[in-house]
């Protein structure tokens, strides 16, 4: 993903509207909130809270299930769509509002041996 910046400190990078401060992942032609056309790149906080989740059992055939889909609200107020990782897919183990932290992992290796890195949020 273009908005996942790897390196020593993997983190997410958003495009922030220079006028109203609305944040977007990926390129935007103009701001969906105010229509302004200038953006600046900002680093998104690595920590946040669990805003909502679902434990997905049914998906397309090649998608491993169950997994925990989540929306995280970062400490600097940005919503991020991701999976919860390093946690059992059990509703009694997952609590709304729990503290989470960004983490990265290898999600696959292609036929040329190149690894794909994904991000998720683990209990903090």
């Amino acid at each position: 993903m273009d908005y996942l910046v790897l390196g020593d400190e993997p983190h997410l990078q958003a495009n922030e509207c220079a006028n109203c401060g609305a944040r977007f992942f990926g390129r935007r032609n103009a701001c969906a909130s105010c229509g302004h056309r200038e953006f600046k790149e900002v680093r998104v906080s690595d920590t946040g809270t669990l805003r909502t989740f679902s434990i997905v059992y049914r998906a397309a055939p090649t998608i491993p299930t169950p997994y925990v889909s989540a929306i995280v609200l970062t400490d600097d107020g940005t919503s991020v769509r991701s999976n919860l990782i390093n946690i059992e897919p059990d509703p009694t183990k997952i609590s709304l509002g729990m503290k989470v932290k960004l983490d990265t992992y290898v999600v696959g290796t292609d036929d040329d041996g190149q690894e794909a890195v994904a991000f998720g949020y683990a209990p903090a």
Partner: protein
Amino acid sequence: MAQDIWVLGTHMTAFGRYPDQDAVDLATAAALGALDDGGVSISEMDLLACGTLFQANAGMGQQVQKQIGQTGIPVYNVSNACATGATALRTVIMAIRAEEAEMGLAIGVEQMGKMGLLAGGARKEKNVYEPSGRYGAVMPIDGILGTDTMPGVFAQAGMEYANDNDGVGFEQFAKVAQKNHAHSTLNPLAQYQKEFSLEEVMGSPMQSYPNTLLMCCPTGDGAAACVLVGEERFATLSREQQARAVKISASVLTTDPYVESGAMQPDVNTLTRNAAQAAYEQAGVGPEDLSLVELHDCFATAELIHYDNLGLCEPGGAGDFIDRGAPWRDGDTPVNVSGGLISKGHPIGATGVANVYEVTTHLRGEAGDRQIEGANVGLAHVIGLGSSCGVHILEKSGIS
């Protein structure tokens, strides 16, 4: 507001599976049924709007004309996700309000077969990673960065409400499905007509927590249609036609305004609230005046949050609303007495017309075993992800 508009005739096919018919057959059955119900002919129609999602480029409206009468009138083929049917209705309503038509036909149709889970793509078994698409992903993100699947997306919408409000959890969501399955046993047009206990609902296979299989709408086939007429033409109709007509006292379509989290998780709340508020203002009624509501229960989690979005319960009170049985057919505000999408079925393009059919049928006092006695005002709501929300408020004619 502009002139009054009336539902003169309406019809829906039973929802279900029609392996021996195609979408044109289904749409035609609904169209002819609506014309007959209104006591009018295709030659009296000034306009036809036809909604279908999965055959959006098929020229469905023109195909239907070839079955019921090629009179040369303008056809608008529309597609707007699960709000497709409501959009077809709105198209005819706008044309009448603009005085480009006096009478028109709105059709919604879908033939889905057993297409299974909507959205959420498979990953290739073997490949070479190349960043592609707007976000530079090297593989489909479904299942890695959250879920694209509908049961999951709407599960998250429900769990967000649970995060913000007390007294909402798995059991409250399950009670919604228990109710709608029970309601469907009285509706011969419903795809499924089987009652389930709360334990059976909660114990059925989990799809996306907290939505179990029995808390998800099925795929299916079906069609519905309405003949709509404006005030001047209405005045020329027979007393019998006028008496069975139902007044459209509000017709609203909204899209989702910007909210911070909207790009990550579709916001199905704000546009519903905006549509409901505009519709109540147009109609001059409040949620307390509604005899029945047909709302977009694609998943049980969705219905529960729309109690609040449509103002049927106190703010934050959707859990208590279902716990005390308020949306049951004998409760304060009967919701989805047809069985809802969960049990009546959800052939996508048909849904937004079918719920107007349902409300109309009750306001006419013609709903048979499932009739809500004394129904005089009803609301029909749909949401199409992406997003669009259609709300129609209908009133009994008062002409006898």
